[in-house]
């Protein structure tokens, strides 16, 4: 265990922990005491690996992006998480957690979702395992993400609107936590990112770490070395980034870049750049960097990408930021949208707008020429088509 991984108290440096009301203590304690044993069980691993292979479609390719490489004068590889079943990396975690929930004897699943990707990935595995599924989604997000709401319903999930607060992701998370308080015995809460009380950030990172595990062997095969010079991912809560970074955290020669959503600009008041705008505090039971008022009220972030407009960041990422292990770079809506369009035109891949933030670091000059870089292509852009249409006036 290095200093970049969680310690025995559930902290990454000063970040993390489990700031939960006592009503949730038994649930979280059950998870904390069981998760490592369950994950280490060969039978669990066999089932997890088989589903990742046969159902999700892993390993996902590590694609050498010829035209992007030519344009930016570097060797650029794309880790194709967009080719996972359901269209993003989110399903790696939901497969893992639903298997874990079954081991714990849970018979009902709840989840929160922002843009709907994690909700869809949860509804998918609940259908696969025949478990009832309730997804909390902010009323505002329900209105602007209609296709994903329909997908969840088609998959048999019940979508409940979070009508409190700002009626977006943070409020959907609050509602899911409340549901868990009210249903502590039979229900497992599948959190969608490396956020929430310990052990969630570590557990979700472990399920997503299949991404960096594959990158290592695929890069070894393609380039004769497991380590890129630059490893790049976008960070909202940070689950795709945690998965892409996981096996590289202790390899200091690999420079880690984190693209965060600057919205209309870090200083415009319409931003989600948590490392730049956040202060240490507690959100969703985790001590981390979060956007808040001087009085400690959590504020509503803004990004064109619904998957990045979370006011906090996972505690692992707060630690990577504080220690300087990762470099956080704010990317505006405009920079991200251009990068998304560029990938579509150069490579025939329409990325999720979240992912476009990571791609934007190329045009922003964050990767020196002659480098070997891996970018985690965390999701595909079908869900964002309307945003692309509106932004580029394609209709």
């Amino acid at each position, binding site marked *: 265990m290095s200093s970049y991984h969680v310690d025995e108290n559930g902290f990454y440096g000063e970040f993390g922990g489990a700031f939960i*009301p*006592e009503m949730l203590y038994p649930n979280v304690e059950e998870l904390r005491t069981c998760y490592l044993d369950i994950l280490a069980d060969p039978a669990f691993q066999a089932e997890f690996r088989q589903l990742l292979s046969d159902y999700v479609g892993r390993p996902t390719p590590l694609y050498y992006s010829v035209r992007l490489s030519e344009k930016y004068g570097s060797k650029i590889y794309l880790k194709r998480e967009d080719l996972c079943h359901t269209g993003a990396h989110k399903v790696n975690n939901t497969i893992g957690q639903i298997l874990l929930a079954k081991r714990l004897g849970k018979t009902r699943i709840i989840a929160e979702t922002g843009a709907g990707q994690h909700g869809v990935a949860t509804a998918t595995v609940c259908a696969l395992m025949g478990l009832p599924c309730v997804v909390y989604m902010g009323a505002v997000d329900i209105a602007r993400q209609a296709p994903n709401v329909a997908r969840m319903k088609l998959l048999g999930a019940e979508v409940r609107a979070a009508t409190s607060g700002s009626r977006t992701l943070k409020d959907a998370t*609050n509602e899911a936590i*409340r549901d868990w308080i009210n249903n*502590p015995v039979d229900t497992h809460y599948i959190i969608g990112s490396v956020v929430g009380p310990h052990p969630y950030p570590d557990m979700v990172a472990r399920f997503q770490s299949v991404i960096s595990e594959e990158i290592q062997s695929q890069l070894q095969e393609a380039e004769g070395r497991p380590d890129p010079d630059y490893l790049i991912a976008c960070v909202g809560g940070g689950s795709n980034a945690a998965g892409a970074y996981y096996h590289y955290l202790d390899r200091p020669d690999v420079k880690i870049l984190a693209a965060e959503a600057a919205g209309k600009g870090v200083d415009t008041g319409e931003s989600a750049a948590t490392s730049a705008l956040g202060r240490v*505090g*507690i*959100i*969703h039971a985790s001590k981390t960097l979060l956007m808040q008022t001087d009085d400690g009220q959590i504020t509503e972030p803004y990004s064109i990408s619904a998957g990045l407009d979370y006011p906090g960041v996972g505690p692992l990422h707060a630690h990577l930021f504080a220690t300087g292990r990762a470099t956080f770079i704010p990317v505006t809506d405009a920079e991200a949208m251009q990068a998304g369009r560029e990938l579509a035109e150069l490579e025939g891949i329409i990325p999720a707008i979240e992912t476009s933030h990571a791609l934007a670091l190329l045009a922003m000059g964050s990767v020196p020429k002659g480098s070997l870089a891996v970018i985690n292509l965390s999701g595909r852009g079908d869900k964002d088509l309307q945003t692309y249409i509106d932004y580029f006036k394609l209709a």
Partner: protein
Amino acid sequence: MSSASATPVNRLHTALSKPGKLLSIYFTAGFPRLEDTVPILRELEAAGADLVEIGLPFSDPLADGPTIQQSSTEALHNGMTTARLFEQLEGIRREVSLPLILMGYFNPVLQFGVEAFCRRCAEVGIDGLILPDLPLDSYEREYRPILERYGLSMVFLISPQTSNARIRQIDDASDSFIYMVSSASTTGVQKGFGTAQQAYFERIESLGLQHPQLVGFGIGDADSFRAATTHAKGAIIGSAFIRLLREEGVAGIRSFIKKIRP
């Protein structure tokens, strides 16, 4: 000011050692109007409440049901802040002698600074704190000495899922009373107490804990108050009181209290 010399734990202990069942009232500071805090406290004292929990509003109150959450949202909208609340409470000990507990979420306290927060509590005459999302181990590891320095009592919650061993641990860490959450739920009034809850009340009573228990969540009228206090020292009313304030304002407080405990 006299509050600096009066030891708050004593004020709480005096209240807790009164004969009979105790009625504690929760309200959200800054609701329904920003300046209602002191008038509400005055009326509660006159009406004969035994204990008061003053809620510090938070944007994301995840242990609360819709009624208290809505009151928090409105209180924040009215302009309530931690600093503002302390200003309002300046001098409160000249007219109110009830034990006063501040209840809120940990993040606003952390941003104010835990030490500064406790110092202000002591200055205005607060007796204790309830911070539902500050877990026991974190409190013991980092914050207990600060609360003790300022003579503040920390009140912990237990729920039907809390194991007996954990309850003993919480009892040991407590120095006034234990907040007994009536069921697996967020705050808000429920329809009566079922047999599972009765069994839970009896289980806790049979543990013979060092500290008295006050039952909270789901109590809103004379019947539920009586049921909740059959096996406990007292009960806490929150959401029902918030609704009363919404409908009738400060003027309705005395008759409300009289109806709960004739």
